[in-house]
């Protein structure tokens, strides 16, 4: 140990004038320059040659290879100054453990990102539904995947979530099916219904002729006889087909007199039928002739549930054909 600052300075200057140091610096610089050049050549060469891979995969592999080459040359350059990497490697295990605990989430996302890119699960331009959100994939980065939703929001989904989630790609294949559920009234002529539905599909130019439209009877529903009309369209035209064919089915049903019923409920009072009783006409009050409209007298025999009383609070104005005496 040199305690004298003067001697320390002298030793430093003596080291600087040592030709061996300059020779080491020159070799290290040479290693670095060659490393940078080789790294770039490897990246460029891989990008040009791996044309059969997706752009994301190509870029990832080129980067990994380039940084590996550069790292090896950096290590070689540092060895010129006497760095002993065996010590570093020994400590690497402990450091890795510490870093691993500290960056568990990031590492998980990073590895998930690698799998996403290599698996080609999603690609930029895909329309996907992930975790209930639908949007266009903007990019698949190492840490996260970014979606642009149709209301123009940016959604950043961690790659770990992407790997764990169910991903539905809506436009991966060139054609797509649209299923239209429709119910018709029980008194409809089912032959006419089926013919009408298939004619609508046949007339719509966006509806593919092949694969042929599919008409499936889904059985007797609560209020209607239900059908499923499954039609195909080019993926880009799917939304247009969905909108047009729904309108066309409604128009065709209207033209053919086919009813699409509302939900209906038939009320049953139980084992005994609902009792009715005929009411005697209420005696008009003495001054009723001045207030009530002409003919607005309580109908004879208007029915009312038992115990409903015999009052005529509407002045008889609601009496209609159904309220005639039996």
């Amino acid at each position, binding site marked *: 140990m040199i305690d004298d600052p003067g001697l320390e300075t002298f030793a430093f200057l003596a080291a600087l004038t040592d030709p061996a140091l300059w020779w080491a610096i020159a070799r290290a610089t040479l290693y670095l320059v060659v490393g940078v050049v080789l790294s770039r050549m490897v990246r460029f060469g891989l990008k040009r040659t791996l044309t059969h891979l997706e752009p994301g995969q190509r870029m990832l592999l080129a980067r990994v290879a380039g940084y590996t080459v550069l790292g090896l040359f950096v290590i070689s350059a540092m060895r010129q100054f006497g760095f002993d990497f065996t010590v570093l490697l020994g400590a690497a295990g402990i450091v890795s453990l510490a870093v691993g605990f500290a960056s568990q989430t990031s590492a998980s996302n990073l590895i998930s990102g690698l799998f996403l890119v290599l698996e080609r699960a999603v690609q930029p331009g895909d329309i996907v539904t992930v975790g209930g959100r639908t949007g266009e994939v903007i990019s698949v980065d190492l840490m996260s995947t970014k979606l642009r939703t149709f209301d123009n929001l940016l959604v950043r989904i961690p790659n770990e979530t992407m790997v764990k989630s169910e991903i539905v790609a809506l436009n991966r294949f060139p054609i797509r099916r649209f299923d239209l559920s429709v119910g018709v009234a029980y008194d409809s002529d089912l032959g006419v219904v089926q013919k009408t539905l298939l004619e609508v599909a*046949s007339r719509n130019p966006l509806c593919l*002729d*092949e694969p042929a439209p599919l008409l499936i009877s889904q059985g007797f529903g609560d209020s209607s006889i239900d059908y499923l009309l499954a039609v*195909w*369209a080019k993926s880009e035209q799917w939304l247009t087909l969905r909108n047009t064919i729904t309108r066309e089915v409604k128009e065709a049903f209207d033209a053919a007199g086919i009813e699409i019923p509302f939900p209906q409920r038939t009320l049953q009072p139980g084992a005994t039928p609902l009792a009715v009783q005929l009411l005697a006409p209420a005696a008009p009050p003495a001054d009723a002739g001045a207030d009530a409209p002409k003919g607005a007298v309580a109908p004879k025999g208007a029915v009312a549930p038992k115990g409903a009383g015999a009052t005529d609070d509407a002045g008889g104005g609601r009496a209609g054909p159904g309220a005639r005496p039996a």
Partner: protein
Amino acid sequence: MTDAPSDAGGPHLERDDEATVVETPPAQAPDAPLDPRWWGAVTIAVGGVARWRAGPSTAHAHRRAADWRVWHVIEPDPYAVAAERPRRVEEPPPDGAAAARIGFAETPNTIAVTPALPDRPVVVRPESALEIAPHERVTLYVSSPTWMALKLEVRRTRRGRQEAAPVVLTELPTFRPSDTWFGASTREGELCYAVRTAARLEPADLPLRPHRAVTPVTVENQGTTPLPITRIAVPMPFLALYLDRQGRLWTDGVLLTRQADGDTAVKVAPAAPADGERLAEPRDSRTFGQTITRTFSRLLRGDHR
């Protein structure tokens, strides 16, 4: 039906000055036989309207000072028989949004309508089942709707010289066929147009439909079992369009051979009608060779689909 002079209906662009308005022939008298040619060119002054009809399709073009606008209406009947060449009409332009609109500093005065074949292959489905007997060779005549290609002639100055260059305004179908998918699966294939046909076997039986082009499809069954024809894909972009003396539109022929081993070979057979006029070149200038044939390897869909 009349045989019009060969140069009467060929699409050409008038080059007259703006002041001289040249019209194509006037409208036909109601009792005159149908002139099946619906194409041609017409010169229109600013503010004028041109109209033409092809089968179920009626189109109007309106020339304004800075743009041309086109309206297009298609009747539901795909087999409507009508033909009317482009001509100036004294009627206001139709209401509603135009199907096409193109702007110019100064609009060219001549609009030309030419027939064109569909831009995608057409998958033809015979209305009634047809089988080709073993070791037989049969020619089916199938018709497909044509497209109306609208062109404007724009004069440009290039290297000090005035040149005329046609600008495609738009293409309109005379009837819009339904889309269909033609491929091995729902993941691989090609989008085509779907057309139903009577698949007539005698050319004499063919009705004259001015807006449809007839393709002779020869099917040769070299197999030992009957070959049911359910669908035929006609590679329209590779075919040229012709006009025969009767005014019927024809395309090049297609030869499909079902070989003894079950494979299907496809060939485009140039088949200009006798004394026919070539109206349009194939859209795809590549030769319909082996590479493309692979795409169409399932061109003929029979029982071995």
